[in-house]
């Protein structure tokens, strides 16, 4: 039964992208491409061939597969239900370092083409991710403090509901910080713009300019799944222990993920992308927010 939510997550990931895009279309007064657009897109890409640059090497060949595999294993590790996910009792560091492995190879794949645009995207991706890490791990430390557990399943398995009333400020601050990290790690506005790849905004989209066919399908699907996984992480860390049957928590996580998708769409509609040089400042502010959340929690415990 534990496998059901994992497969559901893997199947529903393209829908997450659909919700974001449909929200954006609503705000722009367009009809939008429909919720299921990415499914058709993936099916089309799977039938195409994958031409490959003569400059590239085996790294370019395996980079999309490595990136997707890392996200898939992380999905399996995620505690979708009340109990822990696969490979319990996993440390939260394994979860995020797997994603880092995916990023390492995506960046190398981009550098493998020898293209200036892709090099630019790769350089920026590494800059953002290096600055995100401290904030992310401070939040994880906060979760360890909140739940009294240092495994991934324990950290996301829900905290004592009375903490919500005592520590709501800390929880909201941590939630805001993690939401900012989600936007940055999944290359959304205001850090990156998933709709352009040939402007000076480009980060993630620029890295995959030379990928086509099934490779591109792996990348698009992996990106959707990663965003959804981070959204699920945000929901699970904010959810207290729930009463009710076995599926209550799973249902709540999936419902929350849909709300996060709406929020991402709204932010993308009402905000412009930030200037590139402002990004480090925002990420520093995120680190400070997560430190503040921890301090407030520790002071009022």
């Amino acid at each position, binding site marked *: 039964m534990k496998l059901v939510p994992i497969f559901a997550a893997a199947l529903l990931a393209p829908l997450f992208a659909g919700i974001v895009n449909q929200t954006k279309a609503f705000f722009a007064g367009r009809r939008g491409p429909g919720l299921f657009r990415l499914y058709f897109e993936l099916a089309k890409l799977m039938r195409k061939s994958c031409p490959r640059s003569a400059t590239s090497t085996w790294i370019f060949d395996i980079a999309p597969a490595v990136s997707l595999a890392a996200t898939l294993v992380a999905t399996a590790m995620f505690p979708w239900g009340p109990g822990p996910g696969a490979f319990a009792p996993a440390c939260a560091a394994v979860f995020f370092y797997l994603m880092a*492995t995916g990023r390492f190879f995506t960046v190398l794949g981009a550098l493998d083409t020898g*293209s*200036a645009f892709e090099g630019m995207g790769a350089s920026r991706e590494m800059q953002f991710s290096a600055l995100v890490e401290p904030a992310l791990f401070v939040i994880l430390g906060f979760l360890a403090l909140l739940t009294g557990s240092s495994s991934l399943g324990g950290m996301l398995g829900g905290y004592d509901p009375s903490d919500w009333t005592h520590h709501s400020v800390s929880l909201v601050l941590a939630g805001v910080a993690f939401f900012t990290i989600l936007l940055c790690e999944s290359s959304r506005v205001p850090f990156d713009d998933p709709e352009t790849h040939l402007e000076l905004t480009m980060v993630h989209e620029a890295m995959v300019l030379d990928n086509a*066919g099934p490779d591109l399908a792996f990348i698009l699907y992996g990106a959707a799944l990663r965003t959804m996984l981070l959204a699920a992480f945000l929901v699970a860390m904010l959810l207290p222990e729930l009463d009710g049957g076995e599926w209550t928590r799973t249902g709540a996580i999936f419902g929350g993920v849909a709300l996060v998708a709406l929020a991402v769409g709204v932010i993308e509609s009402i905000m412009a992308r930030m200037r590139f040089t402002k990004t480090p400042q925002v990420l520093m502010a995120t680190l400070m927010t997560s430190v503040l959340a921890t301090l407030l929690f520790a002071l009022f415990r």
Partner: protein
Amino acid sequence: MIFLLPIAAVVPAAAIHATGYLAGEPRRALLRFWGFFLATAASMAFVVLSPDRLSFLLAWEFMGLSSAGLVAFEHGERHVRKATWTYLLACHAGACALMLAGLFMDSAATFLAAFFCAVVGFGLKIGFPPFHVWLPEAHPAAPAPASAVMSGAMIPLGFYGLLRFFWPACAVVPYASAAGWTLLALGASGAVLGILFALPQANIKRLLAFSSVENMGIVGLALGLSVLAGVEDQSVSRLACAGALAHVLNHALLKGGLFLGAGSVLKATGTLDADRLGGLMKRMPFTGTLFTLNAAGLAGLPPLNGFLGELLIYAAAFDAAKSANPALAVAGFIALAALALAGGLAAAAYCKVVGAVFLGEPRGDEASAARETPARMWLAQLALFVLSVAMIPGTVILACRITSCGSDALLLSATGAGCAFAATVAILVVVRRFLCPRGGVKPSVPTWDCGYGEPTARMAYTATAFTQPLADLFAGLLKPRRHLVPFRGDPAAPTDAALATETDDRALAGFWRPLFSAAARALQRSHVIQNGSLHLYILLAILAVVALLVAALVS
């Protein structure tokens, strides 16, 4: 005994690599190299096996001197002589501090003085900032196999010394928290500053040297956490200690492999400047593949073994962060943030090296003319990499011994996830091959690059460009020197422009040079008694003997 393993692994691999690396050198130079190499290896082993303090110090000094002979291998070059001089100074200053530590360490009252002297003495070998000055000078100057041995097996012996002489005392003496915080602060600053200075370096071996500062910082951080947790929480303490030892092993194998790879690149192209290389993966497939895998391992990425050591430290830091003791919790959070930042920056640094040196198109004639090295050179690299993969179960067993099986569930779950990851990658690669059967897998077209025509190597991102955003962000700390030749003349047809940046070691210019020149000024006065006249010296010696005799008689 754990510290013997890196010596036993890295020394033979480096020796095999050296037979290829030094091919073509004159007989005398070879004799000198092997003499010093064997002396270094033997003295390193003797440091670990030495039965008492005196023999430890003797072996320690001998290790420093013989490895200085290795650094001075190409003594015809000015920068090599300078590096050797810096290294010798660091060795002797370290030995002096260790002798002082030996004087103080027997009494509990002077325990802290002894500990700080030992931290300076061993820190000069380990490379805690600001004692790391010799690393980025000596490693690029020494031949690659010597760098591999020094970085992989010799530097961690500083930790061996600290553990051997101070570990039992740290747990009982009430000064444990001072000792723990010292190690934690030095380790955290070493981890972050080391990798920050590594990032903008264009010289591959200089980058690797700074990255050694980072890795030793991580080990110091873990040991500091372990000492701090020691009294309160045995399980956290043991977890952190296991992580530190595992990281020493992983660093030895992986960094040894990386230095050997850098040596092969130098041998094949004649340069270590990442901005002039590129496209070596096609020309040197074995060296390139092994270098990439080693780099991924050292960046701490699962499923490779480099991750397991860091995982143990992370787990200890999480446990410390949720502890009820506020000091330990703060230490845990500092460790988490420092490890995370260092990890993110290390991934960026290794992406830069691999990307600039091995991927893309060659940026110069040196790189385009490169050929794969003789088999024994990359086989030495392969041996170290295979050993590091084989150490995955070894790490589990080691950690289990130290933590009395408190960590096996954690490590087994991580190894399980790693295996699942490797299997998924294999499945997806096969699926992809099946989906694009013809034309797809063979490289056939030029890089598309949004239709900008066939991009030349001049258009590709260089190593310096890759890390420029991060280097600019931390410019206040790194203080890079820029040499800019701006556009001149008619704006419509400008002349060539050029930009070069160099990031020097700030500790040398900002701390050691002022210190040494101040010391030289202060010691000017002592020239009164050192004026070159033999009579005065004899008089002073006789006076000293008389004074000692009087002192002996009086007491």
